[in-house]
């Protein structure tokens, strides 16, 4: 049996093949670099009573183990997810790669200041409204080197990065270096950005236990 194809059919098949090839072996380079803004600050309690610090869902801490974790992030980015975007919306397959590179998030503004204010009297010498930034030391989980803490002045150098891998956020931990005599504490933590904007979050009221 002989199959005859006319000229129009042959051209249609050729064009279809070319489109298919283009679609399968797409030349589109996915973009893994994103710009983002710090527009959200969250504070969580930490439990530093043991060897290693852990998240603390309760509102109690030991009076010499007051600790918080502060996270600065881009709320919109986190809500939208961080799937790599293509430069152009070409209807093709994503090129296969041996390993997907990690997304890099570049902050539009860097962090210029950190301020911690107590909203409760911590002791007769530290009334409510005092700036207690100097009573805290810090640790940056992904970036700190060594076992010990860093002072809050060094913290800015540590957390300001050209980019943040993985997600548009940075977290750091704050540890009070005093044994507080008050029965409860409450702090406001304010971060100032290079565009003069400020992000402020309050810790919850933390009831203090005295270690025996």
């Amino acid at each position, binding site marked *: 049996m002989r199959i005859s194809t006319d000229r129009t059919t042959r051209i249609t098949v050729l064009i279809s093949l070319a489109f298919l090839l283009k679609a399968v072996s797409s030349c589109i380079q996915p973009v893994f670099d994103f710009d983002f803004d710090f527009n959200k600050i969250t504070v969580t309690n930490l439990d530093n009573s043991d*060897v290693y610090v852990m998240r603390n869902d309760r509102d109690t801490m030991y009076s010499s*183990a007051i600790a918080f974790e502060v996270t600065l992030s881009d709320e919109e980015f986190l809500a939208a997810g961080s799937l790599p975007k293509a430069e152009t919306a070409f209807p093709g397959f994503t090129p296969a790669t041996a390993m997907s590179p990690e997304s890099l998030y570049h902050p539009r503004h860097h962090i210029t200041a950190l301020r911690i204010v107590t909203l409760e009297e911590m002791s007769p010498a530290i009334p409510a409204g005092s700036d207690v930034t100097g009573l805290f030391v810090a640790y940056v989980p992904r970036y700190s080197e060594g076992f010990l803490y*860093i002072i809050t002045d060094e913290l800015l150098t540590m957390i300001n990065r050209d980019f943040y891998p993985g997600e548009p956020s940075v977290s750091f931990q704050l540890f009070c*270096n005093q044994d507080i005599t008050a029965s409860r504490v409450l702090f406001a933590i304010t971060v100032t950005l290079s565009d003069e904007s400020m992000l402020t979050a309050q810790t919850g009221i933390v009831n203090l236990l005295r*270690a025996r």
Partner: protein
Amino acid sequence: MRHLASILLVLLLTIPSSPIFSQGRVLEKKQVALWFGIRDITRDSLANTGDLDFLNYLHSSDDMSEYQYLGVSAHLWFRGNWEADIKVAMYDDFAPNNLNIKAIWLPMKNLGFTAGIYTYPQLMNEFNMFHRLTDVGFFGDTDSNFRQRRVQESGLTAGLMIPFSYRWLHATAYINGGVSTLSPFTEKVTQKMINGNFKREIRYSTSHSPALFFFPEVELGADCFTFGNAMAGIRVRASWYTVNRSVDYGRVTYEWTYANPARNEVDNPAHHFSKFEFDAGFYLTW
């Protein structure tokens, strides 16, 4: 040290068979031996003071021997009353880092003078227990691993050799003494307050610890049978090593952050330390 010991081990196995040392030209006689031995350690354990004393943590137990070793040796009889004795031994890690090398000059038939080097490793275990026991209110060492390190004791020896042979029996006594030191090392202990944020990091850096030691040895060999020009036999050896030593160190203590550390120089008391070795094996002389 490990590379040096490996080179020596190769030389030890190749020199006796080298043509340049063929019988009658440079060497009058050669002997190689293979042996297995045990090492028993006895050391003072002093009461804890305010400072960590690393010598309290040298490996020592109530067992018959703390270490077992496999060794090879060569004894070379040169022309002109000179001899060399080279012993290389290894623990179960097969690192040939136990060395006992002597040059011997025998002006008389039954009396010689020796000079050489002596080095061997030992273990120092769980020195962090000092902090765990004494630093109340702290996690004394946040490193939960078994803390162990190897220290190498090395020295220069000099002494007398008293050889004696009667028919098939050969006995040699060495009365050695000298100066030895433990290899310096650095260690770090990290601590955290229980129920508190306070953290501390203590860094130790020990110094050389030269001390005089006394090290007599006795070797006995018995010729068993001959084949060709060679004589095979069995050998036993015993030795005792005693020294009084202290390990001093510099200590740097960081609290909260790595700024403004406190620095101390610590002089520890001397400990009496002794070890007894016994090994047995075979030799071949030609």
